[in-house]
C-alpha cells in the first residue's frame, strides 16, 4: 500500500468512514472488462488511493494501463469489480457543482456553439449552483480570454481545430468551481507554449480554491511541475508503482523552477521508475 494512503486509512476501516481531510478513498479496487468475445481483461489490479482536500495529484502510466478507467471509477461512472470507493459527502450526488471532469475526448455537442457548450454544466444542474448564471458568465469571459478562444465563442465545434476543441472542453470543466477536479490529459492536443501557460494558470486556479485534483498526463515534466504528488501506474493489469510527493513548494509555481535541479532530478527518478516498471 502506498505511503500516503496508509497514513490516511486505518487498516480495516469501513469504506464509509472517510477521514475528514479526504475527498475520495479507493480501497483495493479491482476492475475487469469482460465477456464480449475477447475474454476477460484485467485493467486495475488492486488500487489503494486517497485524494485529500486541496491536493493536486498527477497520475502517470503507459497508454492503455487504466488511467481513464480510474478516473471513471472516481467519477462514479463505473463500479469496481472488487474493492470499494468512498466519497466525501455530496461529492457524487452534487456533480457537477462539487466534482468536475475533463474527458480525454472533447465531447462537445455538435449543434451548440463553443459558448453554449461551455455553459452546459449550469444548464444541467442549475439548482446545484449557489452562484448563478451571472457569475458563470463572468467566469466564462475570463476562461475564454485565458484559452484564447474569445474570438471563436460563436463557432460550432467542427469549425474549431483539435487543440481548440480540447480548450473549449477545458472551459466547460473549469466554469464550475468544484471540490474535486478530474482531468484526463487535458493538454494533450495543445502546443507546448500554450500548454505551459494553461498548466500554470490551471494550477493557480485550483491552488486558490480548496479543490483536490486528479490530473492524468503523459508528460513527466508536466506532472512534476504541476502536481503536489505523483502516482505512477504499472502497465496493465495496473497497480500503483510509486506514490511520491513532489519536492517543489505548494501554491503557484513559476517557470524558473523548471531549471531547478531538485525538480530535474525528480523528473529523472520518475522517468526511471516508469522505465523499470
Amino acid at each position, binding site marked *: 500500500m502506498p505511503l500516503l494512503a496508509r497514513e490516511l486509512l486505518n487498516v480495516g476501516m469501513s469504506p464509509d468512514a472517510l477521514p475528514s481531510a479526504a475527498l475520495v478513498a479507493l480501497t483495493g479496487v479491482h476492475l475487469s472488462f469482460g465477456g464480449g468475445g475477447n475474454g476477460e481483461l484485467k485493467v486495475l489490479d488492486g488500487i489503494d488511493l486517497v485524494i485529500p482536500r486541496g491536493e493536486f495529484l498527477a497520475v502517470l502510466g503507459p497508454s492503455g494501463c487504466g488511467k481513464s478507467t480510474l478516473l471513471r471509477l472516481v467519477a462514479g*461512472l463505473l463500479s469496481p469489480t472488487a474493492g470499494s470507493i468512498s466519497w466525501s459527502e455530496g461529492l457524487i450526488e452534487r456533480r*457537477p457543482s462539487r466534482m468536475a471532469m475533463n*474527458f480525454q475526448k472533447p*465531447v462537445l455537442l455538435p*449543434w*451548440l456553439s463553443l459558448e453554449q457548450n461551455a455553459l452546459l454544466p449550469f444548464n444541467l444542474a442549475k439548482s446545484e449552483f449557489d452562484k448563478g448564471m451571472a457569475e458563470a458568465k463572468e467566469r466564462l469571459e475570463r476562461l475564454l480570454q485565458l484559452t484564447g478562444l474569445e474570438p471563436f465563442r460563436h463557432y460550432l465545434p467542427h469549425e474549431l481545430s483539435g487543440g481548440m476543441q480540447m480548450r473549449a472542453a477545458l472551459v466547460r470543466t473549469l466554469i464550475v468551481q468544484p471540490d474535486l477536479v478530474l482531468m484526463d490529459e487535458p493538454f494533450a492536443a495543445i502546443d507546448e507554449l500554450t500548454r505551459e501557460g494553461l498548466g500554470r494558470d490551471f494550477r493557480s486556479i485550483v491552488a486558490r480554491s480548496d479543490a483536490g485534483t486528479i490530473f492524468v498526463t503523459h508528460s513527466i515534466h508536466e506532472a512534476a511541475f504541476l502536481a503536489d504528488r505523483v502516482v505512477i501506474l504499472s502497465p496493465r493489469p495496473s497497480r500503483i508503482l510509486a506514490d511520491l510527493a513532489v519536492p517543489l513548494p505548494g501554491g503557484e509555481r513559476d517557470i524558473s523552477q523548471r531549471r531547478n535541479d531538485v525538480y530535474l532530478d525528480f523528473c529523472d527518478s520518475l522517468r526511471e521508475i516508469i522505465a523499470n516498471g
Partner: protein
Amino acid sequence: MADSRQDLLKGFSLGLRTGAATVTNIALAVAFIVALWWSIVAIFSLPTFLLPSPAEVALAFFHRPAFFLQHAQVTAYHAALGFIIGNSLGVALAIVLYRFTRIRTLTMPVLISFQAIPIVALAPILIVWFGTGMASKVVMASILCFFPIVINTLQAFSSIDRDYAELFDFYRANYAQKLKLLLFPASFTSIVAAMQISAGLAVVGTIVAELTGSDRGLGHVLLNTSFRFEIPSMFVAMVLSALLGIVFFNMPRVLRYVIPRSWKLGLV
C-alpha cells in the same frame, strides 16, 4: 476531391432547401408529372374513363373550384389534426419506451400487431366507436402517423454516441434534460424525416376514413365521383390529395426553423 467531399457532407434536405427553392422544385416536379401523364395518355391513347388527360382534369376543377377546395380543406383539417395527435402521442410514447426498457420489451409486439391490421378493416369498428363525424377520421390519420414516429424516434435515440451519454451521466442530467439537450437535438433530423413519412400517411388515413362513411372531404368526393362516373372529377380529388401530401410533407421542415432556435435560447 474537395468537391466530392462537399458532396458527401451535404446536409440532409431531401432536395428541398429554402422556401423559394422548395417552391421552384415542386413546380418543376409538378410540370414533370403533368408532362409524363399527358404523354402516357397520348401515346397509349387512353380513354377518359381510364385516365383522363391533365386538361380534362383541370377543366373539371375549374368548373367548380370552390366545391373541390372546400372538400380539400376538410380533409386537410382532419389530416392536420391527426398528424399532430399521432405524432405527439408517438413521440410521447417513444420517450416513455426509451426510458423504461422493460415496458418497451413488452409493448413493442403489441404496437406492431396493431400496425399490421389494415386500417380499412378497422374502419367499420372505428365508425361504431367514434361516430361518422370528424373523430373517426382524425383517429385513423393519427393511427397511421403513429408507428413510423415511435419506431424512428426510438431508433434515433438509441444510436446516439456513447461519449455523450457518459457526459450527461457525469453531469447528473435527469431524463427531461437528456431529452431536451441531447436526445432531441441529436435525433432532430431523424424525427423530421419520420414526420415527413407520417405526413403523407396522415392524408391517406383521412381519405381512407372518408371513403368508409363521410359526407365531406376528398374521400367523399372520390367515392361520389367514381360512382357517378365523373372520372375527371375523381382525378381532381386524387390530384388534390397528392398536392396535400406535398404540403404536408414539407410541414415538419418548419420545425427546423422553430425548435432548434428555442433550444439554443433555452440553453444560454
